């Protein structure tokens, strides 16, 4: 059987969902980004001066873009798949001959689409405030998509285990946001005091942000090969876990 129709049906449905509610999905990141640039970039940034020889305002652009990719690819899948479960229309997929990998890729690609679209909106806003240019398009595109994939998968797993609407906001609020902020969006790890530099290196988001920053402006605190290997490894791990959970029907079937 050819599952491309089922896949594109899920994907189109997912894209329609977040574009239909664009004031909740696309507008807020645009506003938040503008605020970041006004406050951190203009008001505070001028007092910081240069980081790695780069104007502070330009230094924070990659992190801000990637942070929005992370949070939106994650939240798209977690809220969409959770409400699919909660409203029970997951049953529409379960009664039909749709293999689990098609369900998973449909939702994950929906999350990637949102992450990428929001990332582009945020990038467009940053162009208004900064004169950002991209040094390595290939690296930027790869990090962009891999990061979106990874966090879309993470959002999927969160949704599978979630039993209430609270459960879908715990991880974004208490884990993702702090890790993103501590992932060197607004600073270089070199600016941290001794021991904290080591601690920061245990944060996977730090690697992705730095790889992305390298792609855009050519500076990084970490080796970008490690960042790619790590992201790919996490993607494989989370994708296998997601398929296993779907196979077992955890949180979905009795």
């Amino acid at each position: 059987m050819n599952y491309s129709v089922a896949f594109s049906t899920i994907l189109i449905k997912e894209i329609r969902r977040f574009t239909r509610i664009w004031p909740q999905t696309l507008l807020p990141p645009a506003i938040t980004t503008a605020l970041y640039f006004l406050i951190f970039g203009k008001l505070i940034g001028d007092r910081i001066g240069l980081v790695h020889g780069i104007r502070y305002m330009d230094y924070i652009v990659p992190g801000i873009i990637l942070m929005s990719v992370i949070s939106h690819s994650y939240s798209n899948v977690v809220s969409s798949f959770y409400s699919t479960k909660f409203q029970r229309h997951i049953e529409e997929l379960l009664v039909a001959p749709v293999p689990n990998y098609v369900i998973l890729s449909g939702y994950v690609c929906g999350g990637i689409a949102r992450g990428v679209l929001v990332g582009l909106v945020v990038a467009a806003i940053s162009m208004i405030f900064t004169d950002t240019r991209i040094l390595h398009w290939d690296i930027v595109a790869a990090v962009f998509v891999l990061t979106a994939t990874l966090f879309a998968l993470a959002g999927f797993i969160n949704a599978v285990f979630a039993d209430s609407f609270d459960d879908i906001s715990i991880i974004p609020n208490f884990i993702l946001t702090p890790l993103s902020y501590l992932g060197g969006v607004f600073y270089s790890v070199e600016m941290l005091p001794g021991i904290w530099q080591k601690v920061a290196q245990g944060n996977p988001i730090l690697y992705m942000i730095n790889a992305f920053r390298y792609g855009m402006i050519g500076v990084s605190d970490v080796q970008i090969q490690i960042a790619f290997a790590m992201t790919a490894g996490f993607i494989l791990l989370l994708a296998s876990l997601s398929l296993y959970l779907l196979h077992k029907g955890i949180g979905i079937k009795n």
Partner: protein
Amino acid sequence: MTALSIQNLKKTYGNGFEALKGVDLEVECGDFFALLGPNGAGKSTLIGIISSLVNKTSGKVRVFDHDLDTDRVAAKTCIGAVPQEINFNQFETCFSVVLNQAGYYGIPRKLAKQRTEQCLRQVELWDKRDTVSRRLSGGMKRRLMIARAMVHSPRLLILDEPTAGVDIEIRRSMWEMMQEVNKQGTTIILTTHYLEEAESLCRNIAIINNGEIVEKSAMHQLLGRMHTDHFVLDVGRSLTGAPAIAGYQIELVSERCLEVAVPKSLGLNRLFQELSARQIEVLSLRNKSNRLEQLFLDLVQ
């Protein structure tokens, strides 16, 4: 060929509750089949297993000779399922609800749109195609689920209490629609806890209670075996107590209303004679509405 064949099907839920205790069932191709049973009997669990929503604990299920364990994709394409609870996306329009389902079954977009139109017309919801499904009335929501279940032209349509909570007029139009679908060759299995519904639609019936099939037969045979009919009579004068007539069990419901259990062996004529001998005129007579309870009592006896 059998449309559905089930052997020794068991289901124990995670909390240890045994909802199905070894069900055997056969439904012939083209049949209009009723699965009748009180709330909690295990009807939805059984339907859930057939339509891949619930994992079975043990047993065999075959749909048009496709084993659910080894040939699930083929089995799924044969089945259209209308669940008991509303389970479509309430923020989507009627059209997208049906169209998406067609997509999940792999029907290409263009054909899917045609099928969506046909099915929405068939359940008389074409006018509502652009309405967000949340805004439909209860009866319309059920019909939308029927349209969705038929979009891939399944050979077996399973409906779990499709008319529960639907008003009488819509219920009748749904009955007509289901009969039409059955006439066109689709096998239909319907669960209900109204005997009347099963009686007016179905040719064969199974009765399930506490996770076990307690009766399987042709509808007319089963009805023929019911020993007692229950009637409600409106009478011409006020009564202070129920009249005592040998062989009949009579209760006073209100001053001018009696409820009578009439054994088939005695019939109605004698009852009327006895009542008019007591100067009690019968103004009207109707079947007592839920006879399922009585049927159970009869079966258990």
